[in-house]
């Protein structure tokens, strides 16, 4: 029962500095953010904060693929966090996967070694939300999405937020993330595709991640025509607006 | 599979030693013991509370004369052996008294007895001692607890900015401040920044020192000083640890903790340092080298001037094999004393050493034989306690 529109709740974990629970397209992830806190000597950096990302699978022990995800997220998130503001400290992000979309047609093994692109947007989005709820100073926000190129009878078509079954049949799979300045922050693709296809993918992803109504009045914004997938940036904004509103109810 | 562990050596057949002042006690204890439990016989009860607060005094009298007196009344004490009342020992949780006139001292705590009255209760297995109205329990055995004025042997374990941390076998590391040592160039010399920078040149980790306890912190930590020629870095010898004055044999506080012993088989003079904390240092005796010109005016200050040159060297002088052998022999004696639960002090060590020399003579390979373990040790101990 995958959720059709993304849902998020902030500060779900009362004892963390910041936290978020995000569920979309069958993925549910909870993230906690603590920091800036004292860094251990081994990851202490004289000029900037160390961003420590931990990804924990819902079942089974984390393996090499989790390390790889952590690596990707860490390098991307430390780009949008103002790490230089907190030398010798660490900003600790723990991402707990709660549920992943089930594929009713296969019994998959618990521990998988291959890298897991489709989960990245969920992890990434949750992390960003958690960082915002922890009020960690940031350069910019960012949004991410996953699209698949599926060939149905000859012609290729691009599917956003593909289901497990789509992914099995896709010829290529792409994860992209953009900063709120429309810069390409992260791009991971696997499969078999041409430069032209990637261009298509890029445009599609950018539409999902970047285009939004004018920032001044974020409430009433125009959703783009094909409602295949929501406008992530708008989603991010409205989520935060509700948070700020409830935080500052007294204003 | 039945496994057996040998209990520590005990002298069922050996009579206990008694010190003179015990005689007087016996009289009293007769009087008292009847009132307590009938089966109690004169067992050398020491009611002399004073004894416990002035341990040195007692040992002085004890250690010195014990030898002569001990053996005179074997028959009597033989009878007394199995008859020491259980009450001689208190154990943890045992009520000592609920009588409010007493004050609780070391090794005791207050527990609420019936209807809110407080009982002084033992927190140790040991013997009750009292000083006026102060009741305390001296443990059968414990780690060394420092007292001001104790002479201790210690090992440097940590070097800090202005002080050393020294292991003296206590529950905490002792502190030796840089300000509390003799600096090369005489006692009058002021401490300088450079001294702090080159603190390791005086004592480094692992160095052994003999020092005196100068003062105590509230939490029981000790502060040492070596501001005297007797004290300072130790060289030319061998270190050994036996249990200290915490209780249960080993080194006891006595008249002299440090003396020079003229060894047999031309081993030459040998220094013995019995740290009150149970750390022992046995080394070749080295005369302070006093150059010719100093010979004339023997002022203690400029004597120090000269000596201080070698004060912090970690170099051993040449030690002749004979001396080494005798040092080893003395070490053997001390070990034997401890293994056989005898007290370690100047008197016992000296007598023990002489015995050891005798033993060596009768043995196959003569003075070369320094082995004093097992049988030999027991022999030695026997000889010391018997005629």
């Amino acid at each position, binding site marked *: 029962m995958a959720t059709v529109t993304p849902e998020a709740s902030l500060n779900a974990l009362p004892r963390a500095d910041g936290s978020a629970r995000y569920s979309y397209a069958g993925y549910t992830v909870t993230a906690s953010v603590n920091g800036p806190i004292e860094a251990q000597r081994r990851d202490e950096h004289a000029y900037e904060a160390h961003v420590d990302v931990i990804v924990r699978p819902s079942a089974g022990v984390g393996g090499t693929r989790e390390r790889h995800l952590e690596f990707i997220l860490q390098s991307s998130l430390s780009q949008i966090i103002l790490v230089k503001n907190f030398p010798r400290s660490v900003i600790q992000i723990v991402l707990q996967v709660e549920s992943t979309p089930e594929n009713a047609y296969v019994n998959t093994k618990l521990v998988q070694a291959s890298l897991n692109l489709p989960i990245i947007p969920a992890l990434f989005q949750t992390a960003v939300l958690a960082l915002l709820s922890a009020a960690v100073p940031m350069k910019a926000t960012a949004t991410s999405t996953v699209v698949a190129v599926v060939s149905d009878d000859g012609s290729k078509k691009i599917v956003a937020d593909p289901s497990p079954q789509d992914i099995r049949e896709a010829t290529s799979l792409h994860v992209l993330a953009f900063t709120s300045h429309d810069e390409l922050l992260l791009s991971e693709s696997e499969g078999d595709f041409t430069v032209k296809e990637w261009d298509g993918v890029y445009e599609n992803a950018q539409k999902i991640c970047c285009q939004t109504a004018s920032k001044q*009045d974020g409430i009433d914004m125009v959703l783009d025509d094909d409602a295949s997938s929501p406008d992530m940036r708008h989603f991010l904004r409205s989520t935060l607006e509700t948070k700020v509103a409830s935080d*500052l109810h007294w*204003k | 599979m039945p496994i057996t562990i040998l209990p520590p050596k005990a002298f069922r057949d050996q009579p206990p030693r008694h010190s003179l002042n015990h005689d007087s006690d016996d009289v009293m204890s007769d009087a008292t013991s009847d009132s307590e439990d009938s089966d109690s016989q004169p067992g050398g009860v020491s009611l002399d509370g004073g004894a416990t607060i002035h341990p040195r005094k007692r040992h002085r009298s004890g250690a010195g004369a014990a030898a002569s007196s001990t053996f005179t009344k074997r028959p009597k004490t033989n009878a007394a052996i199995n008859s020491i009342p259980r009450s001689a020992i208190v154990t943890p949780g045992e009520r000592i008294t609920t009588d409010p006139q007493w004050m609780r001292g070391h090794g005791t705590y207050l527990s609420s007895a019936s209807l809110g009255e407080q009982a002084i209760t033992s927190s140790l297995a040991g013997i009750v001692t009292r000083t006026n109205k102060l009741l305390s329990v001296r443990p059968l055995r414990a780690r060394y607890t420092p007292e001001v004025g104790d002479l201790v042997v210690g090992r440097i374990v940590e070097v800090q900015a202005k002080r050393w941390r020294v292991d003296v076998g206590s529950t905490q590391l002792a502190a030796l401040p840089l300000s509390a040592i003799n600096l090369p160039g005489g006692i009058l010399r002021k401490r300088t920044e450079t001294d702090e920078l080159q603190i390791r040149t005086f004592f480094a980790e692992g160095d052994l020192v003999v020092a005196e306890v100068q003062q105590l912190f509230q939490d029981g930590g000790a502060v040492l000083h070596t501001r005297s020629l007797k004290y300072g870095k130790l060289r030319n010898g061998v270190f050994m640890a036996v249990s200290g004055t915490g209780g249960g044999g080993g080194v006891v506080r006595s008249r002299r903790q440090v003396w020079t012993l003229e060894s047999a088989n031309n081993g030459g003079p040998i220094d013995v340092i019995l740290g009150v904390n149970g750390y022992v240092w046995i080394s070749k005796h080295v005369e302070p080298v006093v150059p010719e010109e100093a010979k004339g005016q023997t002022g203690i200050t400029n004597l120090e001037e000269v000596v201080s040159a070698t004060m912090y060297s970690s170099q051993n002088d040449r030690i002749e094999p004979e001396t080494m052998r005798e040092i080893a022999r003395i070490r053997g004696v001390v070990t034997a004393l401890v293994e056989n639960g005898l007290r370690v002090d100047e008197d016992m060590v000296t007598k023990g050493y002489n015995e050891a020399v005798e033993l060596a003579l009768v043995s196959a390979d003569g003075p070369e034989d320094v082995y004093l373990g097992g049988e030999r040790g027991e022999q030695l101990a026997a000889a010391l306690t018997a005629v």
Partner: protein
Amino acid sequence: MSSESPLVVLPGETIDPSLIPTHKKNPLRLGPGLRHIPPSEIVPTVAGQLVVDHRKTSMWIEYNGGRYIPSQGDLIIGQIARSATDFYYVSLSPYTPNATLPHLAFESATKKTRPQLASGELVYARVSLANRHMDPELECVNSSTGKADGLGPLKDGMVFDVSLGFARRLLMAKSREEGKVEVLEALGEEGLAFETAVGRNGKVWVGSESVKTAVMVGRALRETDEKGLGVEAQRKLVKKLVREMR
């Protein structure tokens, strides 16, 4: 929510220059949540509501949550971690580097008369120095007047954790009007005798003769904070608490 639609900003969003207050003499003052990128860019670093004060030519982001980041002049409640030769190590929030509080930074303190604080005791202090490259420094005395102005060790009492935003509201000059917090007044009106000290680091110390009172105050503060109660709700809450505690 409030009548005039508040302007919510996210990190990195561009602020309409027309909003940036200008003044001939006094320069623009940037509050928390904003950073200035030369030459003339002003960018939010946190998600919150942009507040512009044209009179004071200052602007800042109003937000709640996160971990306390020391900044100069803040009043904080710290916990003595341990004592060094001439200063105390004080913890402001768990897992962060300790701040330092000189032994002599108390009212009329000398080597002899300085307060002896054991680890675990609490102090009400002001952040005298804070920058990213050094551990923060504290003082319990106004360096100019030499007076304590209420700073110093906090004896007995209880500390309650609240959100940073709530602590800020409590610390407002007119916490009642601007901050819309009335619990304390309400509790006072119920005839409860207690004193409080509020730390910017999200800690409120409540001292009172009666344990009950202190607990009540604590619960009132926490609930007001966690449930985000309005003025009326706060008064109701107080009534309720008083009823069930008596």
